[in-house]
């Protein structure tokens, strides 16, 4: 999987599929015909970009808008074939000249400005600490009884403050503990114990580099009758 595919997949996995404020049929029609006012148009696009369901409808309507005018003069002219105004060209020209001058003048001062282009290699990984010293989860791991569950770990030597995250088998974080300098913490009293497969890890806070580091993710099965 390429970098952009990985980012896109991650972006879509967390997409709010059932976001509120879907466009009505009338609003879709107005959008597709270019009849929405500026503010309504902006609001519609903001919703569409945050809602996978509406993104799919919108993408299909863009195909319709792009090609319908070719065989139906009554259909709206596609946006991208409309000629920009003369004023727009003049403004763009001024901007282009200004941008060129800016680059010529300031380029020697900013060598990093172009170092992060879209083709740069990038392989995002789960925050882990192959480059630091993470906490080490000790228990529970594997088959675990429903009674008396205590999460225990060895804390990071450089970041002793820890947070425990409990994650269900769909990857959702179901509990995040308070910050603690202890190395154990009980299953939260307000979280019902349901049999199933879980993951947990320790986030180590602070330390020399700041931020937080995640330990390895470990798994356990909560069962009524462990072996």
């Amino acid at each position, binding site marked *: 999987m390429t970098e952009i595919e990985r980012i896109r997949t991650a972006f879509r996995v967390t997409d709010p599929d059932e976001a509120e404020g879907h466009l009505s049929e009338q609003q879709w029609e107005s959008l597709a015909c270019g009849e929405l006012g500026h503010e309504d148009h902006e609001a519609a696009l903001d919703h569409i970009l945050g809602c996978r369901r509406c993104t799919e*409808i919108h993408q299909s309507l863009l195909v*319709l808008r792009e090609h319908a005018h070719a065989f139906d003069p009554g259909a709206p002219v596609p946006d*991208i074939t409309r000629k920009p105004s003369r004023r727009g060209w003049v403004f763009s020209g001024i901007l282009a000249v200004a941008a060129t001058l800016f680059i010529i003048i300031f380029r020697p001062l900013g060598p990093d400005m172009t170092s992060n282009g879209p083709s740069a290699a990038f392989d995002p990984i789960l925050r882990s600490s192959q480059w630091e010293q993470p906490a080490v989860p000790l228990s529970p791991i594997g088959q675990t009884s429903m009674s008396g569950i205590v999460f225990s770990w060895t804390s990071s030597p450089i970041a002793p403050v820890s947070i425990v995250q409990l994650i269900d088998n769909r*990857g959702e974080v179901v509990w995040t503990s308070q910050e603690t300098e202890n190395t154990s913490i009980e299953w939260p009293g307000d979280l019902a114990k349901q049999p199933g497969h879980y993951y947990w890890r320790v986030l180590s806070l602070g330390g020399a580099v700041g931020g937080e580091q995640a330990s390895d993710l470990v798994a356990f099965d909560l069962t009524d009758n462990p072996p």
Partner: protein
Amino acid sequence: MYEEDFGHLVRQYSRLIRSAVARVAGPSAARICDDVEQNVLIALWQAMPGEQIPDHPSSYIYRAAVRETIRAVRGLKQTSELGPEADKADFSAPPDAIVESKELGRAIRAALSEIGADRRRAVTAHLAGYDVKEIMAMFEWPYHKARNLIARGMADLRRKLEARGYRD
């Protein structure tokens, strides 16, 4: 407009709607789009007011085509036929991968919220699967502006992900 011309227009629209639905239908497009085209063809005929074909039906039929496209896409969604496989959470993947992907997704969304409005929109559209031409049409941006906003926005996103601990 003669009925024959009108029928030709309806057929062209039904083929176009088929393509529009295929744009978002993913791998199952070929199998489902024959049905979509047929249903749309019937619906467009039925959408005409009464038995009389309007003198200038083309803008009317464009609007009907918009409605039928929306219904076709929604219909696919209800039968879970929609979307490239990559768009869906793959729960057959190793759970560690799901967790990592969700965490990265949340980090991406948090990072996007810190980026300037135009760059955020460009990157969000780019990640949602819009191509440059679609982004140009969507925001009425010229080509170079769209390309620049995507590139600079992606660079911003990478920097912010790095700041959150996601390294190259």
